[in-house]
């Protein structure tokens, strides 16, 4: 067992956990933050993305010890005060999801990409989101959602 000091969505957790556990497992099983999803467990689908110090990472490949001292953001942290952030709102407005299983990863990655008023072009957006699978094929509406956010921040 190792002791880890996690900061998730601004809240601190001191946990005794097995060192072989991934951040994804600890988020879902220990902290019961089930908004972060698992779809492959080996870093190939992007479904489990969380933000680590603001950057998207696949939490299934991050050992929990490596998350010690890192500011972790999950989808549950985005609308903590009850108000959707502009990316979430754009996903709602444009219908940028279907089954919703990839949505936390898509929303988090897009939020990170668009922070500080960034205005990536469509090819950059596709490249940034290219590591996250959406089997429902919500891709066109996801691009529309991102365009809406960029348009609004102009």
């Amino acid at each position: 067992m190792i002791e880890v000091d996690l900061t998730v969505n601004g809240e601190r957790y001191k946990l005794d956990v097995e060192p072989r556990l991934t951040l994804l497992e600890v988020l879902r099983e220990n902290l019961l933050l089930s908004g972060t999803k698992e779809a492959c467990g080996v870093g190939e689908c992007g479904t489990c993305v969380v933000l680590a110090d603001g950057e998207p990472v696949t939490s299934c490949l991050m050992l929990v010890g490596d998350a010690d001292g890192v500011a972790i953001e999950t989808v549950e942290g985005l609308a903590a005060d009850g108000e959707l952030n502009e990316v979430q709102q754009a996903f709602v407005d444009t219908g940028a999801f279907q089954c919703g299983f990839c949505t936390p990863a898509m929303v988090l990655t897009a939020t990170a990409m668009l922070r500080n008023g960034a205005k990536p072009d469509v090819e950059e957006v596709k490249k940034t989101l290219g590591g996250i699978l959406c089997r429902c094929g919500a891709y066109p509406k996801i691009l529309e959602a991102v365009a809406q956010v960029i348009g609004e921040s102009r």
Partner: protein
Amino acid sequence: MTGYVGTRAARVDSVEKVTGKAVYAVDLQMAGMLHGAVLRSPHPHARIVSIDTTAAEAAPGVRAVVTGRDFPYLFGSAIKDQPFLAIDRVRYVGEPVVAVAADTEAMAQEALDLIRVDYTPLPAVVDMRLALADNAPLVHPDLHEYWKGPHEIIPHTNVNTIYRHERGDIEAGFAAADLIVEGEYSAHALSHAALEVHAAIAEYDSSSGGYTLWVSTDRPFMLRSELAAGLGLDSSRVRLKVAQVGGSFGGKGVPVAEAVAVALARHTRGRPVRVELSREEDLTASQVRPPAIMKLKTGVTRDGYFTARTAEVLWDSGAYTAYTVGIAIRGSQTIMGPYRIPNLRILSRQVYTNKSITGSYRGYGTTQVTWACESQMDDIATQLGIDPVAIRLQNAYEEGDPYLNGQIMHGVGVVETIEKARDAIGWGSVERQPAPHLRRGKGIATMIKPTMTPSSSNCVINVEQDGRVSVVAAAPEIGAGQDTVLAQMAADAIGVALASVSIPATDTALTPYNGPVASSRTTYHMGNAIVAAGAEIRDNILVLAGEVLGVEPDDLDMHDSVIHDNDGLALITLEDLLAKYSGEGYSMTVGSRFSTADSPLLKADAGVEWISSIFWMFCTQATEIEVDIETGVIRVLKVAAATDVGKAINPMTCEQQIEGGVIMGLSNGLFEDFSIRDGRIENGSFADYKVATIQDLPEITPIIVESVHDEAPFGAKGIGEPAAAATPPAIGNALYDAVGIRIADLPITPEKVLRALAEKNLAESRS
């Protein structure tokens, strides 16, 4: 006054999905819950000699170890051929053999390593053509002894389905042809690859002998019946509670994780057991689209009209039939396409092989047969020198045409879908060679899809004292947006605000019967049930309002939960009206049942009425592609996809289905390819089984065509399936247009393109 139907209302599941609050089966945690793991067969076909579980049973944290002999039941809706866990024999690589329940998933996995199974390998048949041979190994030597439904089989062979249909005079039809075109086409196995893997929690109640399951399924009542029938229980002894479904595409219907969870739960003294497949298990050992080999022979006149077609289709069910008997029958019918063919004959056979089980897949056979039909359509057009669009338009069904069984077709918008796709893609002009190594072409393909008929839907609408409305409808939200369109229809049928409508999660103990969320049937069937119940509850509300206000109910109406007079003057809100009952408490409930069984629209030729469909869906896609003649890589640039949905209840969710279908079709047609050696799927990961990403996205123009259907709720038919089927042949036809090669076997890989280009160049250099 306008309502919600026809608007781009935000999906009712929006907020829970963008905030991560939506709860899927994989998210559920329960007190005392154990974790299951499965030891699977390494052999495509073998006899189980012995199983030694002694060491596993003694391992730390292990609470139950279960084999097929401990749980000796069979299930299957068309043929009861599948054990919950293998009994004495394994029939595919990945078949569940022993299940373990332990305190943690890791403990369960570790215990698997302690189990010893001795097998005697048996000759396996992994090729569907060889499965037909007289001396082929039999996957199910006891086929003749299984319970089965009314369909035909050939006992003591691997043929688990045989189906024939004939109409007109086939010999005369071919005799009248100026040209006869023959071809053989094949469609491959595909994974549904829903991002949420198969997962289930099961709990056994020893006092009732019943089971409760928490599942991710698109067809709760069919799944319940199948489990209960397999276990020899009354169906109400099996209770299913359905969470959000993280994608289905037809793949979350038959018992997969459920079968193992139930077998374990029977042996855990009442503790719930969760079984969640790994991605590898989900890709290789849940179920796949049934592969098909399709032979088509078509006679046409010089000016491009059909005189006759014969279709011979061979389907591969894999080791067990699951829901594929219906595919072999219903799917084969649509190989005739949306075309008037006066003389036709279908022979369909489905065989067992020692491969992963197959199942229904978005389109229920149409994704396979549309590939054959539409590829050959372009071959015919080429040989006759007729434009591919023109030949489709001149043969396409129109309102009132007879279907294969003589049913008079109603709500037929196929011509409009062809015209709109043609116009949107800019048919007739293309920049052929944008770079020395690149060639461009355009292609078109269309399709027809019936819906499960007859079938029924029930709903209960409950209005609470505060004016909130529950629509109790067992139509799990699988991602396709049905909660939203059902809520929109309910809001308009009753006259309440959309925000006041909610659809509780399905629980088979509480929710009345509904057919499956499959066959694109939910909007039409559940919609009709909701429209009927909604109208009745609205009348009840207006009668009550008339009493309270001292007005004739006929002089009242209600919109957005506000009761008003016929001039539109608001009189009282629904909530204020019902507040009169605040002392005693109140709720107003109406239930309704809708079935298509007695619809006069289904009338057809004697003996083949069962082929009729209550409505028809059509989708035409036109594509522009670019092929790199040095690498063989195809890039799809544009897809114009026109789908006849009847009335669009919500144009945004219709677009989602069209766009999602196109992307799935593109992925199926170009990328997804199992590497199967000796019956074993070797590429059980997303790294090796490529699914389309956002970087593969072409420019998609979704086009909604609204044909008129008199019995549809607000005019709406269905939309979930059609788009996925038309994309691969539209791409294949564009490839022919670009470089003059035809790939007949899916998928269209760069290797096949390069080989065909080389063969074409060789043939041209010889001539």
